[in-house]
């Protein structure tokens, strides 16, 4: 899309391939580095990016990069220079799956994999609205306020709901057999209303960001003549979703191949819980439910699915957490597990990484604790645990569009974009061109062979 910085800036052209015809000299474009962005990148995992010497080893070893305008070499340069315009209209940052193939091979220990992660976070922050909330989600102090606000929101809603007396009506209403004391503190209807609101908020914030991001991407893609005819929407969407469903991109990573499994567990655990949640939300309208007692017994298939999904989520989080901790020298000296020793050893994950893993784990673990306490009817504690669970869920939803979790929207969008405009992974391209390359035989003249 954007070839190299050298083309539009005052940098010296180094290409030996340009035709020698005296072409019209392009007007040098003024580049305005954003030092604030550089500072933020340095503080969110990109601390070693100053080491980059633009040797392009990272691009050449990446299995996910397209052949044309590969990443992450150019992103490293843009990051060093703080070229925000380029960075936030770059689709490649989302094609990176943080497998650290580049980090392992970087001859300078600049850790491009971590820089790409920092760039993704910067991209999310750039497009999110309102900016105040985005800033709060990016720091531990902000998280405290968000948790407190979530708790207050829940408490206020709960009290307000009680005041309306709807709870009583709900409990005594005829027809359904949903009549469990467990729900009296946090009535079903309230929770549905609350979470639908928060969910709508997420959709709105992410939708706005995606819309702005898509426009920025289009502005760059449409200026490139090679991708003048986009693929059909349906076909692009199918291909994009296929990549997510099968986790294909993770599969081409060399260094952290285990991430495919860990991430898969988290994704499919989440999907499982979403399905159960949708079922719960529509329970009253669901004809299949009549005759069933709610909440469900442990043997119920829906309960089983929820528990399985929860276990998968926890396992996935633990796996991905271990991947990060492996880079910590104190626990894994010499980098013997991560293969990332010496200068490549990073602070094991940024705040954003741990926020995401921590929040998801908290949601699932408090859920399980609540479930257990409920099974054994530990009355006082189970409400407290349930409250903690609900607060963590609310926090997760509030933080979602500003955190690393926003990648579920932005990465999907990036996939859709590259499928629509025909940008392909290198591995796929290589598989097609490999036989042709090996056919190239040099001319051998017999007299030259002694």
């Amino acid at each position, binding site marked *: 899309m954007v*070839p190299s910085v050298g083309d539009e800036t005052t940098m010296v052209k180094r290409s030996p391939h340009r035709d020698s015809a005296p072409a019209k000299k392009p007007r040098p474009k003024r580049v305005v580095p954003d030092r604030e962005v550089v500072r933020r990148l340095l503080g969110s995992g990109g601390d070693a990016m100053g080491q980059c010497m633009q040797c*392009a*080893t990272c691009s*050449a070893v990446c299995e996910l990069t*397209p052949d044309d305008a*590969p990443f992450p070499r150019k992103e490293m340069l843009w990051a060093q220079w703080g070229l925000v315009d380029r960075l936030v209209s770059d689709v490649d940052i989302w094609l990176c799956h943080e497998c650290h193939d580049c980090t392992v091979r970087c*001859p300078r220990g600049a850790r491009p994999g971590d820089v790409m992660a920092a760039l993704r976070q910067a991209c999310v922050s750039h497009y999110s609205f309102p900016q105040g909330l985005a800033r709060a989600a990016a720091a531990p102090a902000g998280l405290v306020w968000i948790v407190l606000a979530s708790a207050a929101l829940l408490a206020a809603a709960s009290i307000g709901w009680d005041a309306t007396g709807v709870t009583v009506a709900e409990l005594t209403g005829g027809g359904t057999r949903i009549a469990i004391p467990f729900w009296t503190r946090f009535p079903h209807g309230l929770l549905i209303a609350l979470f639908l609101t928060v969910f709508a908020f997420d959709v709105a914030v992410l939708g706005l960001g995606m819309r702005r991001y898509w426009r920025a991407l289009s502005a760059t893609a449409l200026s490139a003549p090679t991708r003048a005819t986009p693929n059909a929407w349906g076909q692009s969407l199918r291909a994009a979703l296929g990549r997510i469903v099968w986790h294909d991109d993770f599969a081409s990573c060399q260094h952290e191949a285990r991430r495919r499994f860990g991430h898969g567990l988290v994704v499919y655990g989440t999907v499982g819980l979403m399905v159960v949640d949708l079922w719960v939300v529509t329970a009253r309208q669901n004809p299949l439910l009549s005759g069933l007692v709610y909440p469900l017994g442990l043997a119920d298939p829906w309960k089983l699915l929820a528990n399985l999904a929860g276990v998968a989520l926890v396992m996935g989080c633990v796996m991905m957490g271990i991947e990060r901790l492996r880079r910590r020298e104190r626990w894994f000296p010499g980098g013997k597990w991560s293969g990332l020793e010496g200068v490549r050893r990073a602070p094991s994950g940024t705040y954003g990484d741990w926020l995401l893993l921590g929040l998801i784990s908290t949601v699932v673990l408090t859920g399980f604790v609540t479930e257990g306490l409920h099974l054994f009817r530990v009355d006082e504690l189970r409400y407290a645990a349930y409250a903690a669970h609900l607060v963590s869920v609310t926090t997760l939803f509030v933080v979602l569009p500003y955190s690393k979790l926003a990648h579920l929207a932005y990465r999907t969008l990036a996939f859709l974009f590259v499928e629509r405009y025909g940008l392909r992974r290198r591995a796929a391209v290589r598989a097609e061109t490999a036989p042709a390359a090996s056919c190239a035989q040099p001319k051998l003249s017999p007299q030259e062979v002694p």
Partner: protein
Amino acid sequence: MSDQGPLTVPEGPRGRLLVVGGGIAGLSAAIEAAEAGFGVALVEREAYLGGRVAQMHQYFPKLCPPLCGLEINLRRLRSEGGPVSRDPRRVSAPWGASGSLAYLTLTEVQEITRVSGGRHRVRLRQRPRFVTARCTACGACTSVCPVERPHPFDLGLRSSKAIALPHAAAFPTLYAIDRDACEPSCTRCVSACPQQAIDLGMPERELELEVAAVIWATGWEPYGAKALTDLGFGAHPDVITNLMLERLAAPQGPTGGRITCPSDGRVPERVAFVQCAGSRDVDHLEYCSGVCCLASAKQARYLRAAHPGVDVSIYYIDRRAAGNQERFLATTAEDERLQFVPGKVARVDVSGRFPVLEFENVATGRLEAATADLVVLATGMVPSQSDTPAFRELGRDAWGFLTGLEARTNEPSAGQFVAGCARQPMDVSSSVRDATSAVARALAWGRTGRNAFDRRGAP
């Protein structure tokens, strides 16, 4: 008796000096010190003088053969007298007027102890050559020797017999036996030698010497390309190092100066130079050797001159030319069939018949794969190492290069100076100049007994 006689280095007007290493820096230092009035002992670990320079085909920027410059130095060395003459009658010939010089091959410095007056007592150990100075290099031994081994001087590009001249232009012109390669109890060469010059019972010997100062010019070794697994060295015969290309190009080299692919001997049509092969890399050498860019440019030029049909690509991160050498690179780039491609080669795929280089062309912003007939890895320079106590005690920097100047007058390594690539990577002419400056410092030390850079030291 050549360098096997008794080591008699007289005290010159400026005292006595030990030079460790007989490469271009050590040779220059020894000769200049002798000319300046030192009695000089020059010791060399290998069986010949000349070091790495003797392996080179051409120098940059003049593209002239180094044997020529080496020859001039060796003539100067002979004129300084000393036990270098092959004529036994000249062994006791008077030393040169300005000083005197003796050299010892196959010798390492074992131990250096500081004695009074800033002087050093040196213990040397000379490994046996098994061939005496009577050798006339007739080659009768080689024709009967049954053992073939990879020739170290030609970096394994050809094999040679266990008894062989170290290289075609070796000085001293004496054969040497690689006893580790010999068949047990084989004495065929002994009986074949018409001069009775072979003595398989020659012992190792130790020598002692008292000197005023020491100059370490222990030089460099090419970085071990075997460690560059991604670049296919060792996995494909047509992936070679820059030093191997020097041997391939040298008229006395394994191919008689015809640059061909080691795999099947064909003339290459596409040659790729991989710059920074293991240099500026935290996994290999973190530093830039500073000469590989120019060396590759030089090699590209003599390749293009030798094979007008060859296309040369040089893949680089930065084109580095120190000082006035920039012009050499610029002139090199004028050749239409020689291109500089920005982008470090990340991998050389050696699974096919021809090596394929994978890289991002930073100029065009595209990932590319280029097939080459011959891949030359421009490996960097690492300081030569030795496990003798004398060497271990020397100060060195993070990469193992010797640091000589920092020593305070009262430190044990004061009065020991470093020259050439032992100090830092450099080209030949810089090495020669560095040798001269080391001699100047040694002269000052000999006169004042202080390190010239130690301003605190009492006189």
